[in-house]
């Protein structure tokens, strides 16, 4: 469904992505793990069009989207939940969800999807009239994911959804990610919490200094000694 070929990204003289190639098949959860500054966020931002790649190609269902604007990529189903909890702070939870459907015009479908989001995250229904800035960190993360679902993603990018959450909430977020995936959304997941990510992922790529070092199935990498040492804490 998504194929990235030899993507290069520079920030001035910094060569942040050194020709990465990866693919995500329909229905999969693929995870991108790596140390701080490895280039995970940069990869997601380049694929969703928020930054320009200097060279390489990105194919969505066989079609090159490398020259497409970020907005059109959202329209085509590449939806990004950015790193950190980015919600519209002074708007209510419901208004946040409505803005998620910013590019859609199908009113009935939007109402349907809001219900669906509330089903995934009952707490958001409870808080629907509350300003998003007053939600707890975990609730804001859920809202950011819910808002992304409102854009009708075919492939959902999640950039460190578990960052800063209590262990119990991390469990919950991961189980919701799994549910969303089972409901038919393909997922590309970036995580620091490599252990958890590898457990739910079909496949994984390990990024190091802007290059892909290792790739394989989630289970394989979980067992690999090198990975254990570097990312799973022994």
């Amino acid at each position, binding site marked *: 469904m998504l194929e990235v070929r030899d993507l290069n990204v520079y920030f001035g003289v910094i060569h942040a992505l050194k020709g990465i190639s990866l693919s995500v098949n329909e229905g999969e959860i693929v995870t991108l793990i790596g140390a701080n500054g490895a280039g995970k966020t940069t990869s997601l931002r380049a694929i969703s069009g928020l930054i320009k790649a200097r060279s390489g190609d990105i194919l969505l269902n066989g079609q090159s989207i490398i020259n497409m604007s*970020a907005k059109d990529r*959202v329209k085509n189903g590449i939806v990004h*939940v*950015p790193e*950190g909890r*980015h*919600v*519209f702070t002074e708007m209510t939870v419901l208004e946040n969800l409505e*803005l998620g459907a910013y590019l859609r015009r199908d009113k009935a479908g939007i109402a349907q999807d809001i219900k669906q989001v509330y089903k995934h995250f009952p707490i958001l229904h409870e808080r629907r009239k509350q300003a998003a800035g007053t939600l707890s960190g975990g609730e804001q993360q859920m809202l950011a994911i819910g808002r992304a679902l*409102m854009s009708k993603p075919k492939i959902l990018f999640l950039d460190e959804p578990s960052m800063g959450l209590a262990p119990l909430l991390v469990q919950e977020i991961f189980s919701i990610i799994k549910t969303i995936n089972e409901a038919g959304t393909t997922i590309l997941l970036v995580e620091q919490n490599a252990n958890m990510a590898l457990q739910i992922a079909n496949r994984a790529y390990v990024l190091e200094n802007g290059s892909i070092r290792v790739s394989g199935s989630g289970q394989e990498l979980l067992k690999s000694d090198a990975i254990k040492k570097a990312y799973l804490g022994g």
Partner: protein
Amino acid sequence: MKKILKAKGFKMLTALVLTYIIIQVLVSTNIINDYMQATLVTIFINIILAVSLNLITGFTGQFSLGHAGFMSIGAYTCALITARIPTTWGFILGVLAAAIVASIAGYLVGLPTLRLRGDYLAIATLGMSEIIRIIFINMDDITNGAAGLLTKRFVNWTWLFIFTVITVYFISNFLKSTHGRACISIREDETASEAVGINTTKYKVMAFTIGSFFAGIAGALYASYFYVIKPDIFNFNKSVNILVIVVFGGLGSLSGSVVSAIVLALVSSFLQAFSDVQMILYSLLLIIIMIFKPGGLLGSRELSIAMLGDWRAFIGEKFKALRSRKEKKTTAKEDLDNDPVENK
């Protein structure tokens, strides 16, 4: 639902017509004399400036310190046109040209600078407006340099009233549209806006261009009422003054800007009696009010009938609290009065 909207629009219209009639009566009976009429006109111009800057800074979240620059472009454009066509039609042509030229300038300035954020954007817009001012000083063949241009008065306060209403109406409707919501979402969180597919650069530039459009109109009205324009009128201080009105009324509240423009104009005309310490008092007042209402007079809310109701409830509650406290105090006093007896 439509009925309610209509009814609301109707109420608004009635209020406007009433306001107009009241001012008209006050003017024709000379209760508002010529001197006060100048204050009235200043209020209208300041409302247009504040509301348009609020669109850029309060609603879209782009900190601009160059609003006076776009105002000056409007003022000079209009003055140069009315100098050649010294009629009301010339003025109308002048206002239109002023708005268009100012908005083009806003677009050209906005496109490169709006990539910057926060302080950097403020410095860039400040620099731009200073450049505009210096260009006007140096184009003396056309602008008569630092001495400025002298034209005639082409408008009375009615024109200003009309343009003010149009400005507020347009900007408030823009803010209610999907475009307006896109602008507001940028202020709330730019990254999240990008993530939902909003072209943030486009909307920032749009807000800046529309804001400059109306700043141009304000400049044209200024030139056509006060008939003397000099580059120094549109300096850094002017931009700051406009920003003060916006912040004081509440970033993100149009009615706040309107109320604030009125209040500050009245305050400063009242303070003119204390000429030596006028600026000190004015600044002091601003500081005091900002300490007590850090979000500005209205925060990011809009004035509405419902809010007046809230205020009543709020005052009622405070009053009740005050009374119950007094009661407590008196009972406490009685206790005290009784106490000493036992202590003995």
